[in-house]
């Protein structure tokens, strides 16, 4: 079963980030690297990425066949996606266990979502 582990950035997590010194910030990054390595090694990682700042985000829409974009950051957005892990694991419990190992779980901005699939269905 695939699960997406979403790491959000919200006012609470950003406030916490501001209080961290360089060593603590480095430890946070290292925590993600170690988790990525462990999940690669266990054969559970599908893909994992950290996302660039919202400053570099673009919103895309198509109107009358024309593609329009607007540049971030978007003032109204309080919480945004900062990174994710897509894992393929044996159970929901295991996905939650992995989510708990992300350094960001300390700020409570981590979410686990089961991935929709074309599962067995017959009656």
């Amino acid at each position, binding site marked *: 079963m695939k699960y997406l582990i979403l790491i959000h950035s919200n006012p609470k997590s950003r406030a916490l980030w501001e209080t961290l010194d360089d060593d603590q910030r480095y430890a946070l990054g290292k925590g993600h690297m170690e988790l990525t390595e462990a999940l690669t090694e266990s*054969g*559970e990682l599908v893909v994992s990425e950290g996302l660039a700042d919202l400053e570099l985000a673009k919103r895309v829409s198509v109107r009358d066949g024309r593609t329009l974009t607007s540049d971030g950051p978007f003032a109204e957005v309080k919480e945004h996606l900062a990174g994710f892990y897509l894992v393929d694991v044996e159970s929901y419990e295991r996905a939650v266990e992995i989510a708990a190992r992300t350094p960001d779980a300390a700020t409570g901005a981590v979410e686990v979502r089961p991935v929709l*699939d*074309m599962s067995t269905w017959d009656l």
Partner: protein
Amino acid sequence: MRTPFEDLVRDLAPQVLGALVRRYGGFDTCEDAVQEALLAAAVQWPTKGVPDNPKGWLITVASRRRTELFRNESARRRREEVVAAQAVPEPEPPPAVDDTLTLLLLCCHPSLTGVSQVALTLRAVGGLSTAEIARALLVPESTVGQRISRAKQRIRADGAEFRLPPPEEFPDRVAAVLQVLYLIFNEGYTASSGTSLNRVDLTSEAIRLTRQLHDRLPNDGEVTGLLALMLLTDARRPARTLPDGALVPLAEQDRRRWDADAIAEGVELITRSLAETPVGPYQLQAAIAAVHDEAERAEDTDWQEVLGLYELLNAAAPGPMVTLNRVVAHAMVHGPLPALAHLAAAEADPALANHHRVHAVRAHLLDLAGDHESAKEHYLKAARTTLSQPEQRYLEARARSRPE
């Protein structure tokens, strides 16, 4: 489409691997060598033609490759000042039983995780490449590669050997193989969404491997039961989805599109096995599938028979899905109201709390009872909680089509 040439190579894969492991030992290195020989065959045979003795050809190429791999490995070991005592190959013992069975049992060794068992079985017994397995399972090649190498490490660390387990372990070990094959079969439903043409069809692959197992253990009722269950389920595949991927429930399928040959074979297998061997969960599930498949129209279904089989299955292998299916069969025999009471009781199982199938079954029963408004509400609840996209579409459509 798979070519006859590919079938030949993949049928030979476990035999070649078995021959190599018996000759040299070291499952790990032999498996890598066989993979490379299969690759060489895939490159050379289509242009140069299939050799007169394809199995001998594969064994020769794989042996040569194994020697190279082994030399590299022992050179590395020597650098680390470890004596490669295993360098002398042991004399080849005569094969007491067929290697395919031994290989299946090794790949489904209980010390491995489920996902590793699946990957290793598909590669070592199925003869699929890591890339093909990755495409079939919709995960990156590196993920599958890692699962396979971890599984092999595990087998080495555990000292699991390439030989049949002792008789007292045999039934449990075969049960583990059946579970892996059934997992591969169910995984195949994902592939049937048809988004990619070059994906291996895991459903057919599971049937092929289960057939091989059945050839080796023809008197094992549960092996026969699983093969029958796969055939009887897969027979409905042509009618199970519309061209746009939408699901068609059993009651609404165009039964003329079912695969009559597969049904005939499945029914014959299950009938014989029920008469001759002790009954088990796979046989009961196959028997239920057979009752459905033999009904010419949905309304001809012998629900009394289905209900009786679910009672037996519930006694042999109880589980949340068995409970739910029994409730549905109960409704078809005794009407929706007593079944709704059964459903309420079943919901006490934590495994079924807020489960989409409970909502869907309740919606269906409410519909039968004439309470279309509540049915609609529960269809929508089921649509929100399912993880299957086609099922979500189906449930939303059901909710929309309720009579006012």
